[in-house]
């Protein structure tokens, strides 16, 4: 999860509406990382909670920010929480500027955490999944299995569509010119059939931070949800979404763009995404090897319906420099590669704070608009 500051926004019931009582607005939790290259937003419908009391109608939406570390400290041990906590009450005390998290535990034990908060501006990312040209959606379990072969310390991964409409995940390593110890490259190829939705052209690919993605993925796996990935051209943010009837989560991650590349050099050409590794240089008698490989495959109890030869990524796609922008956020990360190059940033997402007008319009915010899009 991107560490940093969470913004809680509690929407009041819409003002000025008469007639059937309208539902109070959901609770939203948003955060962005310090390099502004990852944004997360979770919306919880009132029904998610046993009891939900928003601000009284006519009141402003209550909006505050708290330190993530403090908030997480209240839920320090998940195992402890599951075993001993019966109820959790979160309330905003405007007068004393405190967010109160009260855990009602067994045997009458009550733990109260008073977190100070600050008023803040609205934090909203401008993004619309519907504008993305590519979508893929799969049960979180499938994606969880897909990232399993990758080392936990791996920072970035490239996701793309390979030949035969196979979805390819490939570890991304910045190539260092004189490195004597090169890193291993891992590639995972998944068939289209494993996806609930796959709307993307072959050759489409993006590179993003795997660590951030793993955060959302583990949540989605535990909640047994499907995860959809909306993306566009490299450089444009990618949107990762989970949804069920009571909650709505989005991660918006920056992706590497072509212009992040500093000096194009022949050895920087990204090896093409492919379903099988096939040697490429002229040293090999390529044809012989391919046919040999094919012959070998068929003898090993496989169907002939394997993906064919590789296809290169969309022309002009070059690997940009590894951003390594997460060093600030990596306090909690157990291991950072020794000797990582000086951090270069992802291009930051193109959003900033939007000064909310004094009277919040009753219309839905851009984020909520997605719900009404009713995807899938």
């Amino acid at each position, binding site marked *: 999860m991107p560490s940093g500051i969470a913004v809680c926004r509690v929407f009041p019931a819409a003002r000025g509406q008469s007639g059937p009582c309208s539902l109070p607005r959901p609770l939203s939790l948003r955060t962005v990382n310090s390099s502004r290259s990852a944004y997360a937003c979770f919306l919880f419908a009132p029904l998610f909670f046993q009891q939900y009391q928003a601000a009284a109608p006519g009141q402003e939406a209550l909006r505050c920010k708290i330190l993530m570390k403090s908030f997480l400290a209240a839920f320090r041990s998940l195992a402890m929480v599951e075993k001993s906590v019966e109820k959790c009450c979160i309330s905003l005390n405007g007068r004393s500027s405190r967010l109160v998290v009260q855990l009602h535990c067994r045997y009458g034990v009550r733990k109260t955490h008073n977190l100070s908060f600050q008023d803040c501006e609205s934090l909203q990312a401008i993004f619309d999944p519907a504008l993305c040209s590519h979508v893929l959606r799969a049960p979180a379990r499938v994606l969880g*299995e*897909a990232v*399993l*072969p990758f*080392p936990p310390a791996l920072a970035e991964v490239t996701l793309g569509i390979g030949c035969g409409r*196979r979805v390819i995940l490939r570890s991304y390593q910045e190539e260092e010119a004189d490195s004597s*110890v*090169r*890193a*291993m*490259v*891992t*590639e*995972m*190829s*998944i*068939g*289209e*059939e*494993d996806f609930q939705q796959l709307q993307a052209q072959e050759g489409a690919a993006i590179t993003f931070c795997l660590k951030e993605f793993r955060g959302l993925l583990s949540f989605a796996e535990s909640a047994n949800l499907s995860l959809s990935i909306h993306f566009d051209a490299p450089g444009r943010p990618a949107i990762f979404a989970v949804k069920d009837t009571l909650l709505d989560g989005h991660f918006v991650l920056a992706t590497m763009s072509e212009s992040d590349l500093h000096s194009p050099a022949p*050895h920087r050409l990204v*090896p093409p995404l492919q*379903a*099988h*590794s096939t*040697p*490429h*240089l002229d*040293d*090999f008698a390529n044809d012989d*090897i391919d046919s*040999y*490989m094919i012959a*070998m495959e068929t*003898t*090993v*109890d*496989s169907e002939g*319906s*394997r993906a064919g030869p590789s296809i290169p990524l969309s022309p002009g796609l070059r690997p940009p420099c590894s951003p390594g922008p997460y060093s600030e956020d990596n306090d909690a990360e157990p291991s950072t590669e020794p000797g990582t190059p000086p951090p270069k940033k992802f291009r930051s997402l193109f959003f900033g704070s939007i000064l909310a007008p004094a009277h919040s319009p009753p219309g839905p915010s851009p984020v909520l608009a997605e719900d009404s899009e009713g995807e899938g």
Partner: protein
Amino acid sequence: FLFQEKIITASFYNWVSAMVAKLAKICTLRISPQTLNFILSDKVAGGGVSMWCELEQENFFSEFQMEGVSAENNAIYLELTSENLSRALKTAQNARALKVKLTNKHFPCLTVSIELLSVSSSSRIVTHDIPVKVIPRKLWKDLQEPTVPNSDVSIYLPVLKTMKSIVEKMRNLSSHLIIEANLSGDLNLKIETELVCVTTHFKDLGNPPLASEDASQDRDPEQMAEVRIDIRKLLQFLAGQQVNPTRAVCNIVSNKLVHFDLLHEDVSLQYFIPAFS
């Protein structure tokens, strides 16, 4: 360029590479028509350990093909980070098929291609490209099988897990350890510091029959042959042994060397620890 391909049906390989990864950060993989070897040859200041692990390829691979530099030098020597290989093969635990191939993708790689079992009809394929360094022929002489020295005593080892837990505790007390054994089946692990001496005695371990008859006749069966070694090196060796081997022998050359000779089913592992100088 050298080309070689093999297909492995069983996912046995996993623990071999995991074991090697514990013993040597960087190791050499030697591929020859009959065998596969993992080699560690640490010549640093003469105090380094050596490891020689050998597998007969026909016991493990359904298909094996290789082509060395030339007919006389029909072998390939590759240097790699052992953790990469063990991590790659870990993925193969639920594999339907596994292929290992030497490739050249901007730099030489050992490409491990794994087809995973999948619930759906389409298969999932994982490919790991492990960067390797091809070792030139002129350096091969340093990577040959170490000659097994004439040992003074040869003895069967006790259960390795027991040995490991004992050595772990001893490690807190001293950085050197004396390993001594005789031809009557006795083996002792000793540490001596200013404050304390601790000895663990193993009895009735049994001695394998010695190759040369003369040496065994002359030696008093009760006489101990000892060697003082760096305890960390012994611990590193023991830490790599997850499963008790089929056969485990310890050969001691007095004050010079201890040689561990293990056999795990079809894999033989030899580990040499020189005396601490």
